């Protein structure tokens, strides 16, 4: 498994490969043999979730159609991966300039227990204002994650807990088709070109 992942990542930049890597865990945990198409995030038009934004607005998949979309799963109690990725995303939006205004950009929390719309609003005020935080019931977050083939899991810790979660940044075209994933440990120089391709 590790070797296969290393080889796949070694190829570098292969969009399908990255999606495959991400989807592999899903495929293993489900125990079913899937065709490669089942490993990719489904098109946004086929997703089904009902979430609430940090501004208090209801957000459903149809609201994203018509603009390219960038989505990251995370949580505000996350000290390392999430601030790093949100800093990255903020930097990419800066690099894209005014074009970035054409994107839907969302952080979907995997920790709705702590991340209320108000908590998300406070946290996201430290990053690019175009990033919209989404939360909701655990079952709606789960429905959203399954459409992305993303995974998350609560990990207990002494008197506390943390969350394991899919760390890649998902990109979709304006019509809702899946475009690519910016993998967490991928060279960040590839990110903006990938976003631009999804926006074409």
């Amino acid at each position, binding site marked *: 498994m590790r070797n296969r*992942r290393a080889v796949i990542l070694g190829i570098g930049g292969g969009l399908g490969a990255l999606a495959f890597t991400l989807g*592999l865990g899903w495929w293993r945990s489900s125990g079913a043999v899937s065709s490669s198409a089942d490993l990719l995030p489904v098109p946004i038009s086929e997703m089904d979730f009902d979430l609430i934004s940090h501004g208090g607005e209801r957000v459903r998949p149809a609201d994203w159609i018509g603009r390219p979309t960038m989505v990251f799963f995370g949580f505000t*109690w996350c000290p*390392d991966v999430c601030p790093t990725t949100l800093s990255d995303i903020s930097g990419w939006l800066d690099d894209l300039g005014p074009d970035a205004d054409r994107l839907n950009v969302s952080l979907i929390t995997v920790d709705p227990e702590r991340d209320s719309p108000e908590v998300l609003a406070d946290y996201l005020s*430290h*990053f690019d204002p175009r990033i919209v935080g989404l939360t909701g019931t655990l079952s709606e977050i789960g429905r959203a994650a399954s459409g992305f083939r993303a995974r998350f899991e609560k990990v207990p810790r002494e008197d506390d807990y943390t969350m394991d979660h899919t760390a890649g940044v998902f990109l979709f075209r304006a019509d809702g088709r899946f475009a690519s994933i910016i993998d967490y440990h991928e060279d960040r120089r590839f990110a903006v070109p990938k976003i631009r391709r999804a926006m074409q």
Partner: protein
Amino acid sequence: MKTQIISTLILMAASPAIACESTTFGDLSIANPWSRATIGAGRPAVFYVAITNDGASDDALVAISTPAAGRPMLHETTVTDGVASMPHAMSIPLPAGQTVQLAPGGYHGMLMGLTAALKEGETFPVTLTFEVAGDVTVNAEVLSLRVEGPDCETDGQ
């Protein structure tokens, strides 16, 4: 060691250069100690640093302590099949002649049970415990939540 004497968090106005400073401790060189600002004291904070072992024998970072947090620990972010998790690291190896980074996305100090929110521009002491070299205390600078590291000319990034 000495930090135990300091009962309260020492806060002082810091120039951005503090996170770019380097401390030499025997064969070890400890550079760029920094952290990210936190929203309140309820969330865990991080501690990042670069450690170079210029000696002829291996050492290891086995613990950190700080008056800024009740439960400081060493962690490592790992990404397996696209899923990020943060297992506890019992010890971070410091092979002879190499530099090991505690940096975003890899090894890091996890500061749980903060005594107060970490505010940008403050500094706080962190005592590093090495298996061979013993204890040394450095000052970590709190940077913005939205940075990926100190902007140093010589940090090798």
